[in-house]
């Protein structure tokens, strides 16, 4: 039993932490969020130069061979900095599919650019009717000669508007909610028949509605074998869930620090409000939620490294349930303890709170995971 991280992992954590502390200030983050792109292309290049976009990929593919621990270390710091660059959609999600299913030729054509940072990608899997059910896929891919013809609607595709490359789930067989018959394709986002309506999200990310109308995709862009993609999709969303939960742990830490600082300097009735026991106990509750979240994160990360995939799935659900219940409470408390300032656009606390709340919604909220948790 060992909770410590290796020297290399420590270096990775330090490198991201230093960048966030020194370079990633809140004001410029806000300015980038309001730009047309919705994030900073320069910073994205820095992420690539610093090697972070290579972290989760195999050395043979030009990556750094990182696993769940490395993902956790990077994403926790991204949470602390409220990073809006498309690491999750491009590297963890679309990249996560490509590293698992793409053959060497496909990796050369599509993955290398993502690692370099010259292009970004998105994973288009959710649909208007699917909610959190990954095997509910109405989008169809029908064979026509040596191509597939894709038709359907993908919804709230993270980084969908900006992405150069789309990884799309579509049904090559069986009925809408069957586990089998789901396939994944990698497609240039500008292929004829793809129309994208891009928008910002409440937590300052970018997303898009994507319509697929008779989109012709060469069979060479099918990832893995036809009809077998569900397991990969589940693995990738599972990994991405660990990623956003690590981000949530970073956010909680910042909310706790900022709430403590604020209540110590905010004077009312002639005394810092941190002196009030009613508020102290609430901050202790917040501290406890933060520590428990970290414990469940470590549990999920450590279990992800073991062979038992059922246990790993359960550990991720447990983590997500806690983040979605106690974590959201922590966010609400942080706002409450900041008083009126907590509900202003000006204060970073409000933006941490919004992201933490959306993390519950992403990849299945607490209610979803409570219902599907195997007791």
């Amino acid at each position, binding site marked *: *039993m*060992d*909770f*410590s*991280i290796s020297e290399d992992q420590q270096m990775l954590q330090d490198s991201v932490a230093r960048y966030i502390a020194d370079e990633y200030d809140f004001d410029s983050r806000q300015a980038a969020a309001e730009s047309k792109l919705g994030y900073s292309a320069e910073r994205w290049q820095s992420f690539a130069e610093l090697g972070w976009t290579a972290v989760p990929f195999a050395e043979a593919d030009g990556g750094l061979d990182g696993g769940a*621990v490395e993902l956790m270390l990077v994403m926790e710091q991204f949470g602390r900095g409220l990073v809006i660059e498309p690491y999750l959609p491009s590297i963890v999600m679309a990249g996560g599919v490509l590293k698992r299913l793409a053959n060497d030729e496909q990796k050369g054509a599509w993955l290398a650019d993502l690692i370099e940072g010259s292009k970004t990608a998105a994973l288009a899997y959710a649909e208007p009717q699917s909610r959190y059910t990954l095997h509910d896929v109405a989008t169809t891919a029908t064979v026509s000669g040596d191509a597939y013809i894709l038709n359907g609607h993908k919804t709230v595709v993270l980084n969908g508007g900006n992405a150069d490359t789309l990884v799309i789930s579509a049904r090559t067989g069986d009925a809408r909610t069957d586990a089998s018959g789901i396939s994944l394709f990698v497609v240039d986002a500008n292929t004829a028949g793809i129309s994208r309506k891009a928008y910002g999200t409440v937590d300052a990310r970018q997303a898009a509605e994507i319509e697929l109308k008779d989109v012709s995709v060469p069979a060479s862009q099918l990832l893995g074998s036809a009809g077998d993609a569900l397991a990969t999709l589940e693995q990738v969303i599972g990994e991405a869930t660990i990623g956003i939960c690590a981000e949530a742990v970073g956010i909680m830490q910042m909310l706790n620090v900022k709430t*403590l600082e604020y209540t*110590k300097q905010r004077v009312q009735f002639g005394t810092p409000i*941190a*002196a009030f*026991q009613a508020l*102290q*106990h609430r*901050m*202790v*509750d917040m*501290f*406890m939620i933060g*520590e*428990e*979240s*970290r*414990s*469940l994160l*470590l*549990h999920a*990360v*450590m*279990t992800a*490294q*073991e062979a038992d995939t059922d246990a790993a799935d359960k*550990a991720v659900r*447990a983590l997500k*349930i*806690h983040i979605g*219940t106690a974590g959201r409470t922590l966010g609400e408390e942080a706002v409450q303890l900041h008083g009126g300032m907590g509900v202003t656009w000006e204060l970073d606390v409000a933006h941490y709170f919004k992201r933490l709340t959306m993390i519950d919604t992403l990849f299945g909220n607490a209610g979803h995971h*409570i*219902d599907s*948790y195997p*007791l």
Partner: protein
Amino acid sequence: MDLSFSQDELAFRDHIKGFFADHFPQDIRDKMDRGIRLDKDDFVRWQKILNEHGYMAVNWPVEYGGTGWTPVQKYIFANEMAQANAPDVVPFGVSMVGPVIYTFGNEAQKQQFLPDILASNVWWCQGYSEPGAGSDLASLKTLAERDDDEYVINGTKTWTTLGQHADWIFVLARTNTDVARRQEGISFILCDMNTPGISVRPIITIEGGHEVNEVHFENVRVPVANLVGEEGKGWTYGKVLLQHERTNIAAVARSKYRLARLKELAAGSLHGAEPLMQQSTFRSKLVETEVALKALEYTDLRTLAAVATGKAPGPESSILKIRGTEMQQRLDSLFLEAAGYYAMPYVPDQFSLDAKDEDIVVDSAEPTTALRYFNYRKASIYGGSNEIQKNIIAKHVLGL
């Protein structure tokens, strides 16, 4: 980072599992499984078995008869103990006064008291709380006045758990009332319960059990030789005592065992056409409880891992008492819910192994559910109430 035990640790686990299978008496196990209160002989008999195998004082240094186990080994032992549903060792001797004696006591005291604690020849009880000194322990009023080579003790101690069985009591008493800070002038004194002037009055708790007592001291004369350490330093020693049982304070292993039993009960109880386990409201509560228990378990393991590598426990350790007791109570509450009507009968006589057939009104899986629920409301009150724990975290961890 990895979760696995080493080969040595796995072998140790198998060894301990075998010990409980071979040596934990079946009749005591039956009582534990049925929620029947153990009597003094049950505890003593079991603790003597533990001691014969060297497992009585898990946390003591080897030189005084402890195990010398690593934190991971202690964790494994606690886990196997819970899985066997074996009772915890009565803490007042081995976990409380013992460490104070071997840390601050003199050679004569070590020789007089430690072997009898290990062998369970002497039953200890605690003299801390008073009717007017609960969370605010430093306001205690029991006086120990020096008279030649004796202390004369007057006052009342309360919440003395299992004091009705006790041979000795350790007392925090004021030896000096003229002090700048209330924490000064308190001394740690050992006292034979047979000394004239001591009387024990039972306090019957909410579920009808006799577990705690009030102990009165009226001109009780104790040799000065029974003072532990220096006069007036008792507060410091007492704090050490309360901190000593850091490991296992969260009672994670015990709660895991109980959650498994609760699932069995819920799977076997019908709610309409389906098992209670499938009823969505109850099921949600079970899931959230399991998640909270996992969080507690890994918080406990993080503390353990820090201690195992020679570091001080991190701030996460401070939440263990609060969350551990909340978990116990949460499980109690769910058991009560799962029992349905069978939570209601109050028939103390049926909760004994020699109950006659006519005493048994219901043969339910969890006949003592409600009794335990009511009794364990104590868990968030004793050992420094959970509100006091939050004050401590606010001050020492958050710097408020």
